[in-house]
């Protein structure tokens, strides 16, 4: 158990390389501030499919294939494929990767899927159980609206606290070869339920979990916020980020100077009317894959704590009056050079 630090953190015995990442997004994401950085921007959110669910799977399929080819590998040569999304029974992932013929581990951590996938993938490789692991995370605005809210063409106003589900799929190829941008360890989040029952305020539901995981990470590792160039949360948005900074500050840590949120980065809320910010598994996934990973490769960032966040709810649990537990998984990512 020597790799374990404190209650929640694991430090790998050697860096697990991120060989390549890929990002496939919808047109709205393509019009956002990061638009030019994505590998593929689709003109049609339907992606040539005949339903929103199939469209999401088409995005997953494309991003997984693209990531494998950017890593210089065949998809079939990966030892494990770990994938997560928001749809019931993970159908977005399943039908996107069913033809890959790779041992499959389906995960559900709501929008924290990319963090959960990188953590598990890193552990599999560090444990010596795999040499190459592909991690995928996806979400689609239209399939999420259909499942969690209203039919797309139904006329309803969105409250200003609501977030905008990112249409996209991201993949990352992890490898046992040491060098470059790598995962060095992770702090696995506990569920934190702050009693929020409003499904239109996900940022508030998740902020407590993000603060809990970030503070646990500092306590477990003994590191200070200054160790990292950036602490990047998944999809807290404007409201959740505000709450996060207050809570982390109250716990005695200052992260205002280096905190970023993928839900804030991915859209221009004034121009794109995205209210509280972007959300969904793809929000942290594609923002990391297209933006932060590239910033690290280019040497503009060298150490980040990547903290995808998720709201663990279903339409049924909300209708039955359950509050929304949040979850956040922190992944230590550094450019180790070489």
């Amino acid at each position, binding site marked *: 158990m020597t790799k374990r630090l404190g209650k929640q953190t694991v430090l790998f015995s050697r860096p697990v390389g991120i060989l390549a990442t890929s990002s496939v997004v919808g047109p709205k994401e393509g019009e956002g501030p990061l638009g030019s950085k994505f590998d593929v921007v689709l003109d049609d959110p339907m992606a040539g499919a005949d339903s929103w669910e199939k469209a999401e799977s088409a995005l997953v399929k494309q991003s997984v294939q693209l990531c494998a080819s950017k890593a210089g590998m065949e998809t079939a040569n990966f030892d494990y494929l770990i994938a997560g999304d928001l749809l019931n029974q993970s159908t977005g992932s399943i039908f996107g990767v069913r033809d890959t013929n790779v041992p499959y581990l389906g995960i559900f951590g709501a929008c924290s899927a990319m963090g959960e996938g990188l953590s598990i993938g890193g552990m599999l490789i560090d444990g010596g159980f795999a040499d190459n692991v592909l991690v995928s995370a996806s979400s689609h605005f239209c399939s999420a609206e259909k499942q969690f809210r209203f039919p797309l063409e139904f006329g309803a106003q969105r409250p200003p606290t609501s977030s905008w589900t990112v249409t996209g799929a991201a993949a990352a190829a992890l490898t046992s070869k040491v060098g470059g941008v790598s995962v060095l360890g992770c702090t696995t989040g506990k569920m934190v339920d702050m009693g929020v029952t409003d499904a239109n305020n996900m940022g508030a539901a998740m902020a407590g979990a993000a603060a809990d995981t970030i503070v646990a990470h500092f306590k477990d590792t003994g590191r200070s916020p200054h160790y990292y160039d950036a602490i990047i949360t998944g999809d807290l948005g404007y409201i959740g980020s505000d709450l996060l900074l207050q809570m982390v500050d109250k*716990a005695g840590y200052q992260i205002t100077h280096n905190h970023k949120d993928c839900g804030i980065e991915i859209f221009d809320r004034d121009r794109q009317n995205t209210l509280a910010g972007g959300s969904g598994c793809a929000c942290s996934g594609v923002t990391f894959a297209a933006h932060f990973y590239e910033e690290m490769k280019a040497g503009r960032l060298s150490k980040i704590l990547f903290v995808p966040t998720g709201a663990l709810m279903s339409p049924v649990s909300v209708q039955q009056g359950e509050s929304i537990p949040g979850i956040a998984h922190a992944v230590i990512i550094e450019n180790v050079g070489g």
Partner: protein
Amino acid sequence: MDISKSHYKKMVEKASPNSRLGANCAKAFVVGGLICAFGQVLNSLYMFWGANADQAGTYVAMSLIFLAVLLTGLGKYDDLATFAGAGSGVPITGFANAMAAPAIEFKKEGYIFGVGAKMFIIAGPVIVYGTLASMVVGVFYFFFGG
């Protein structure tokens, strides 16, 4: 986290922006009023063309429902609703949109379990409680209506 749920609730309320009630009400008033005024124009036209008052009312309802369903199918009604809110939700056009939108969305799951079963997911409660309310009023009217 070492923060009580009640304290967190206050923090959330402080951090969360409220809906712009005044502006939303004004927009709903204007758009809702315009839809109803348009209905009145149609009503006068149908009567001018020879319909009696009952017939004209039916024709107006048919016309507005047709237009709302057409705009829903073209993907425009939800844009109007984003601006107008209750202004486009309360008139008969809103009800038509609430039927057409799920019919389009769930068509992928087939005509029985998709369109047929899911068409009423939004409008269903309106019909159920509308019917119930009319029964309650009917009973009152029977006993006290004279």
